């Protein structure tokens, strides 16, 4: 059978299995159908819910403006899929082309898409993590449980880790009028993703909104009362915080354990795939029938030195899923590269934060528009003399311009005047990123080196 005929047969009666029934999985499935895939489609998800949207969980849901059960993702089209929800995948047999499920079933595939995403990194001390009142926030159930607890008006909430999720949670708590302490190991919030210069702005923003922000400290222990409810947290500076709700917001762990021993290039950094979303096996050879998309993927990006990037970004999940779906049904000459420009947004303390490119690669930053003091600005990141990323605080409408600068590798600092350039925008300064070998809450973009089969990373919890 020649290639065209087998592709035609795949489109007509092939079996596609998608593991991971969240944003990337859903959009991939929809794209497959849109492109005329008429075969069988199986959606496997470990949660019992149909695909839902996560960004509202740390915003509208915590504010009580929308129930966690109202976050279902809008559907672009009917899917005609077999849904295996609430049943995690537990293994992969690449040779036989089968996915094993927790209930013992095996699902055969002709094409497999892995979009298992990430989960919240739990509090490292299991017994303390079990205390009533200790939460993480990643899933719909997490969101519902936390929103319920916040509605009971706890006397104080402690957020451990001031990355984007932790900061948004703190913001929502303040908006609800709750007392909040934020404990962050680094010198300021958001430093992992945006560096110390912008982190300092985020710190001011938090303090101005009444957050008891403690930076440069670690939480060393959580203490429960006799009934097993959390009552206090002990900090590395010797102080303690009395609290009845603790939210552990220490970044994410990639859901790749189920692939251990499968021979796929999957590890703690994610699953390595080529720019066409095809997974690498452990030998560094690309597979033909296994694709990866979303938070769990890491793939080389031409614009950023072909380094493997892991992007925990909403838009990346959508774009990579669409590319993967296209490529699954295409001959090699018709495949498309996933060349999505990293971009994310956050909304906290009344400020819209948006970023393009890879700020974490940046060594310097220049404020090209507006002012840090006003908290309305565009910060441009430079790396080896070129523009590599940009962040906007309440200035998002300008970002398409900076995206073009990154795409066309414009020199840094950008050699031209802009509207609203202030004195502080005349000279770049050190962007002040922490040493990447020191884990904090984790940035949303991770540079994960060049090796497609890198399994060596270990995360050493600081606590």
């Amino acid at each position, binding site marked *: 059978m020649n290639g065209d005929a087998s592709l035609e047969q795949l489109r007509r009666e092939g079996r596609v299995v998608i593991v991971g029934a969240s944003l990337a999985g859903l959009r991939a499935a929809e794209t497959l159908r849109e492109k005329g895939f008429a075969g069988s489609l199986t959606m496997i998800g470990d949660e019992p819910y149909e695909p839902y949207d996560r960004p509202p969980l740390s915003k509208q849901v915590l504010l009580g403006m929308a129930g966690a059960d109202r976050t279902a993702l809008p559907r672009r089209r009917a899917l005609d899929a077999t849904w295996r929800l609430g049943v995690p995948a537990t293994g992969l047999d690449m040779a036989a082309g089968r996915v094993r499920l927790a209930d013992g079933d095996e699902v055969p595939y002709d094409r497999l898409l892995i979009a298992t995403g990430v989960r919240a990194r739990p509090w490292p001390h299991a017994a303390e993590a079990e205390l009533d009142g200790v939460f993480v926030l990643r899933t719909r159930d997490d969101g519902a449980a936390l929103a319920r607890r916040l509605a009971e008006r706890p006397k104080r909430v402690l957020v451990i880790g001031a990355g984007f999720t932790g900061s948004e949670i703190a913001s929502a708590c303040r908006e609800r009028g709750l007392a909040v302490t934020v404990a962050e190991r680094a010198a300021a919030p958001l430093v992992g993703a945006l560096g110390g210069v912008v982190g300092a702005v985020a710190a001011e923003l938090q303090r101005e909104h009444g957050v008891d922000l403690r930076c440069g400290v670690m939480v060393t222990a959580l203490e429960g009362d006799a009934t097993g409810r959390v009552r206090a947290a002990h900090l590395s500076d010797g102080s303690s915080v009395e609290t009845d709700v603790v939210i552990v917001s220490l970044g994410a762990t990639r859901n790749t354990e189920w692939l251990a021993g499968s021979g796929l290039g999957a590890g703690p950094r994610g699953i390595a795939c080529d720019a066409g979303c095809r997974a690498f096996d452990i030998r560094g050879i690309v597979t033909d029938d296994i694709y990866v998309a979303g938070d769990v993927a890491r793939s080389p990006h031409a614009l950023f030195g072909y380094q493997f990037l892991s992007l925990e970004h909403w838009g990346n999940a959508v774009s990579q899923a669409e590319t993967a779906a296209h490529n699954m049904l295409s001959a090699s000459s018709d495949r498309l590269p996933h060349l999505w420009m990293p971009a994310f947004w956050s909304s906290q303390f009344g400020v819209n934060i948006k970023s393009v490119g890879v700020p974490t690669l940046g060594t310097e930053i220049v404020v090209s528009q507006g002012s840090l003091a006003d908290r309305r600005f565009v910060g441009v990141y430079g790396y080896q003399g070129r523009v590599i990323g940009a962040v906007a605080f309440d200035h998002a409408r300008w970002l398409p*311009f900076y995206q073009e600068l990154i795409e066309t590798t414009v020199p840094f600092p950008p050699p031209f005047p802009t*509207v609203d350039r202030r004195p502080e925008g005349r000279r770049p300064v050190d962007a002040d990123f922490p040493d990447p070998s020191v884990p904090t809450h984790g940035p949303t973009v991770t540079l994960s080196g060049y090796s497609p089969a890198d399994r060596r990373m270990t995360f050493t919890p600081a606590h």
Partner: protein
Amino acid sequence: MTQSLLHQILDYANRADPYPIYEELRKTPVHHEEDGPYVVGTYYEIRSLLHDPRISSDARNLASTARDPLAESAQEGSALPPSFLRLDPPEHDRLRRMTNRPFGPPHSPHRVDGMRGELRDIVAGLIDGIGDPGRIDLVEEFSYPFPVTVICRLLGVPREDEARFHTWADTIAASLDPDPDADPTERGKESHEARMQLGMYLAGLIEERRKKPGDDMLSELATAKGPDGAMTTMELLSTAALLLIAGHETTVNLVTNGMLTLLRNPDVLQRLRADPRLAVPVVEELLRFEPPVQLVPQRTPLADIEIHGVTIPKGASLWLVLASGNRDPQRFENPDRFDPDRRDIQHLGLGSGIHSCFGAPLARLEAQLALAELARRLENPRLLEDPPPYRQNAVLRGPRHLPIACDGIRP
């Protein structure tokens, strides 16, 4: 071809169908004639320039040597400070932010949607008031009065003053659309007079609202207590004038162009009659196909910038021809086809970037309600003249009259 492209864009003879000229324009990335403005008509280049922080909207950055044949009509004889349309950040941002506070999300998410019932009533009243269904001038009888009434209600102009407001608005709008046969000095005087009277009236109304605020936008602007404080009376006057002028002519043209386009595409009109929900994609496609603002003539670079090898010098006058970008075949399939089923519809009709249309949510709703209701109530409507007579204005392009006939008006 003997006439220059620039001349052709401005030539009234081409008003009814400027699109073949735009097609010519798109053949060069940047069109420039001696002394004239630099004109850009391709989609991606326009979109880039709309987001480019090297481009200023502030007339003070325009070199004195820059010649712009449209400059004179921009803001003649106004004693008011420039509105945020003609300012750069941070002043632009501050004024727009303050104006948005009583208008849109996050602080006023219900303002526009809350006007839905009122808009429906105004539309119904205007259609009820149509005289002879055998000869309707849709502009005079419908499109023209509609947005002025809406802005009065939005600002909180008392009902009994609306008639006066209409008269001033008409005179000012006429000055934006010079009639070549009229005496320019006389017209200038009239328009100046109308601006003065409108300004005095608004200043008085602002005073009243400061003392006794209502829930209208002017009251909220006059008594704002947000982080930016309240506007000065001059800023407030300038802003109110901007809302009136920018929100008026544009909406008139959107509704009129809409009905004209629907009458030229009777299958779409029929579908809209059967399903008023089609009004949403119809209006989006309309903003692409016949945008009420054809070009943005008031930008200038803060430094020399290069586009595809052409240098646009600092301080030069730069025109972005949105209506041309909207018909760019590099961006839209079959761009000259009116197709409300188009799914890929990121048009430039409302601009983009920080100066993107402030009133967009209101304009969309006005046009959707108006077109759906006209489609439903006019029985067997047809054009009496095609093309209809157009206004002079090449920027805010639209018919001066739209003579139509119908067999009757449904209740």
